């Protein structure tokens, strides 16, 4: 037995409680580990072993009286976290970013068009009913009907039909091949509920809803029959809606809550000094954009778009608008948290000469209006001012138009009345999903109206090709090209990706890696975290 094997065995024994800390440290010393390292290894081993118990209180910066337990209307972070706490989905993105089966034990497809999901057996809903294929079919139909108002309706338009094949298997027939379909079914809207009861909050998740007051709180207790191993450690959970960031931070500092999302970046440096507070930062897929509408003058001109793309000081925006809690973007929506992020694409920088060159070539003169309001994202107006400043160095005049917060998303964004505005995208876990949400020619949220140009035609063809491509290397190549097409020809300026910044008390322990697909460990912190 080698030293390393011996160490591993001793660590297992220590974690499972067969030997005490002293014996463990002594055995490490015996294998030649110095005392300080041995102590810290013991600490790590202890921290990595989840302990169960306790009441976990989380302050969530969202929540409104219009919230429901019906996942079809889930639209904010409170319902998202709550939904993931009491419900499961066919698949999930785990804490290291990989897609794994959740209620589906496995899934397969030969052509990307017909998908077979084999369900986990013996999983029980909170009401005692055993989950079967019938429930899965009903849960999907909930989002798909003709007059469904589900927010996931658009996601599932690709599904031609689905049917149960026996009790433990569901078969989906898609209209066209989609290699990412297993990712789509992990969407937080598509929670699996018992047939005939989509709305009352009965799920298969690690916690059972005890009391749900929309806009106030959700009280849950541990599901003693939870099927998932090594998850759901807390005994009781309270999700409290605390929309005011100051109140949220005060509550965490005073120990009234154990964790919170959305730290106010303006006060983060003071907040960090509190000895009881841990700041957690992950770069996710969320990003800020400035979409230019190609059908509105003067943004139809390639050179003008190029000029503007070159007249932005990206790092300055990250430093000033996000106070450093973010990363620069490269004018496409795919983040480093995505699987096929194109790292070969050269980073676009501020370049007054190039900007002036393209600007001159476009032949445009006069002020270019840029609409912004802080409802697009916090600091959008400031960001627009910074862009106007840096563009003026290249001789481009930008006029920042301050829009009212109210009704911003219906009157300004994605509206031909405004050619260029500030916008926020939560990002999507897959490339195809992000592209088909905002960049392909068939989506209603193509907020740049990027259609008809050569680049766009090529892009649309590539996206369809990639969807059917099951080979990983080929998909990577295609998606790399898609990103470069958006970055060059597309109408969107994507200068920054904002990090998810959350905070928790030092008594909270997590896995070494936390998920980046959503804030708070992929919004699954409740079942993934524990009290150290």
């Amino acid at each position, binding site marked *: 037995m080698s030293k390393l094997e011996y160490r591993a065995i001793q660590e297992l024994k220590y974690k499972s409680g067969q030997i005490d800390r002293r014996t463990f440290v002594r055995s490490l010393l015996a294998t030649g580990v110095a005392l300080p390292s041995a102590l810290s290894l013991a600490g790590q081993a202890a921290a990595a072993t989840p302990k169960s118990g306790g009441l976990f209180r989380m302050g969530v910066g969202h929540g*409104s*009286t*219009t*919230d*429901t337990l*019906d996942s*079809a*209307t889930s*639209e904010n972070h409170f319902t998202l976290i709550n939904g993931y706490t009491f419900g499961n989905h066919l698949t999930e993105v785990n804490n290291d970013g990989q897609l794994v089966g959740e209620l589906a034990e496995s899934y397969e497809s030969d052509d990307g068009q017909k998908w077979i999901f084999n369900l986990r057996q013996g999983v029980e809903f909170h009401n005692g009913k055993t989950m079967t294929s019938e429930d899965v079919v009903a849960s999907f*139909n*909930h989002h798909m*009907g003709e*007059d*469904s*108002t*589900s*927010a996931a*309706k*658009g996601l599932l338009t690709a599904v031609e039909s689905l049917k149960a094949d026996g009790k433990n298997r569901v078969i989906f027939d898609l209209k066209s091949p989609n290699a990412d379909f297993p990712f789509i079914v992990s969407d937080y809207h598509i929670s699996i509920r018992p047939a005939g009861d*989509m*709305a*009352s909050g009965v799920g298969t998740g690690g916690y059972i809803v005890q*009391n749900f*007051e*929309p*806009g*106030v*709180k959700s*009280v849950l207790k541990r599901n003693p029959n939870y099927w998932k191993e090594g998850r759901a450690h807390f005994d009781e959970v309270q999700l*409290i*809606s*605390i*929309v*005011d960031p*100051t*109140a949220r931070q*005060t*509550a965490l*500092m*005073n*120990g*009234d*809550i154990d964790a919170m999302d959305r730290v106010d970046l303006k006060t983060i440096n003071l907040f960090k000094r509190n000895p009881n507070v841990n700041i957690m930062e992950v770069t996710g897929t969320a990003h800020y954009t400035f979409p230019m509408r190609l059908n509105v003058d003067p943004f139809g001109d390639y050179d003008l778009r190029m000029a503007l793309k070159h007249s932005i000081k990206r790092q300055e925006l990250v430093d000033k608008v996000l106070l450093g809690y973010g990363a620069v973007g490269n004018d496409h929506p795919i983040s480093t948290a995505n699987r096929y992020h194109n790292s070969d694409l050269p980073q676009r920088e501020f370049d007054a000469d190039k900007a002036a060159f393209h600007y001159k070539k476009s032949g445009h003169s006069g002020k270019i209006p840029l609409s912004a309001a802080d409802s697009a994202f916090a600091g959008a107006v400031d960001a627009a001012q910074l862009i106007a400043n840096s563009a003026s160095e290249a001789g481009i005049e930008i006029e920042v138009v301050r829009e*009212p917060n*109210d*009704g911003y*998303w*219906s*009157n300004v964004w994605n509206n031909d009345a405004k050619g260029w505005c500030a916008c926020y995208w939560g990002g999507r876990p897959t490339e195809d999903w992000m592209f088909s949400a905002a960049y392909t020619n068939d989506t*209603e*949220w193509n907020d740049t109206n990027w259609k008809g140009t050569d680049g766009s035609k090529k892009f649309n063809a590539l996206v369809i090709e990639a969807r059917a491509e099951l080979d990983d290397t080929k998909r990577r190549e295609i998606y790399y090209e898609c990103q470069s097409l958006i970055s060059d020809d597309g109408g969107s300026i994507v200068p920054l990706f904002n990090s998810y910044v959350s905070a928790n008390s030092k008594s909270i322990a997590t896995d070494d890696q936390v998920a980046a697909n959503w804030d708070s460990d992929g919004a699954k912190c409740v079942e993934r975290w524990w009290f150290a």
Partner: protein
Amino acid sequence: MGIATLFVVSIIIFSSIEYLPGDFAKNILGQAATEETTAAFRRELGLDQPAVLRYGQWVAAVVQGDLGTSFSGRNASGVDRSRQVVDLIAPRLRNTLFLASLAAVVAVPLSLLLGISTALYRNSVYDRSVNMTTLTTISFPEFFVAYILILFLASLYPVFPSLANVDAETPLGERFYRAALPALTLTLVIVAHMMRMTRAAIINLLASPYIQMARLSGASPTEVILKHALPNAWAPIATVIAFNLAYLVVGVVVVEVVFVYPGIGQLMVDAVASRDIPVVQGCALIFAMTYIILNLIADIIGILTNPRLLHPK
């Protein structure tokens, strides 16, 4: 008279909501709103009908005690889980009334006591320091007073919690404990107004001939104020108290936000933000009713304590 006012108020509420920009269907569906789903939603909520018709239906229902159903919690796939506006408002209103009464129980006797005693010892050091303190607390914005209290009573010396999120199942003792800081904030904010009005009303009367007569007949200063001046000062004092109590019910949204207290003010702000029209209308109506009823009570007290008005010629 009160009912007529209420009717006028209902028209104002309804028409001002009509002019709110934005649209509930688009709001609840968020970025996910497509033409189709929006239209389906609007049809279901009856938003495609003319405003006058909707107003008529609303008033007819309200008169029967039905505030309608909230716009939220609906979906077109058959299950309607929207909540009755009454069910939404009731627990919030109960919380608000609890907080308001807690603040009032402390603030009203306190300000009367301070008002009377400062009138009694007017221009003394005591009078000046009480005036100065209460004026200081009223001069700061509510959220500032709230944060100062949090700093001292929750962070530095953890006596009370900074989160006041009570729910229907919170036991009474815990409720008092959790609502202590918000109630204290509100007390500090309203005491000055009531106390100074009490003091002014009494001092005003002290110059009257009948008070001089009472003094000449040998009554002590305390007796003069309590027995002779106070009964005639009740009318203005009652009006000010009514005004402040109404404020405690309708105007405390800032304090609710700071302490995360689930009161009716937050409910209304949420409802306005999401264009949940029935809830906004219900809250506005309740606020109007609070003002009207409290003012009515103040008027009645004014009449009852004034023999001239009680027995008109």
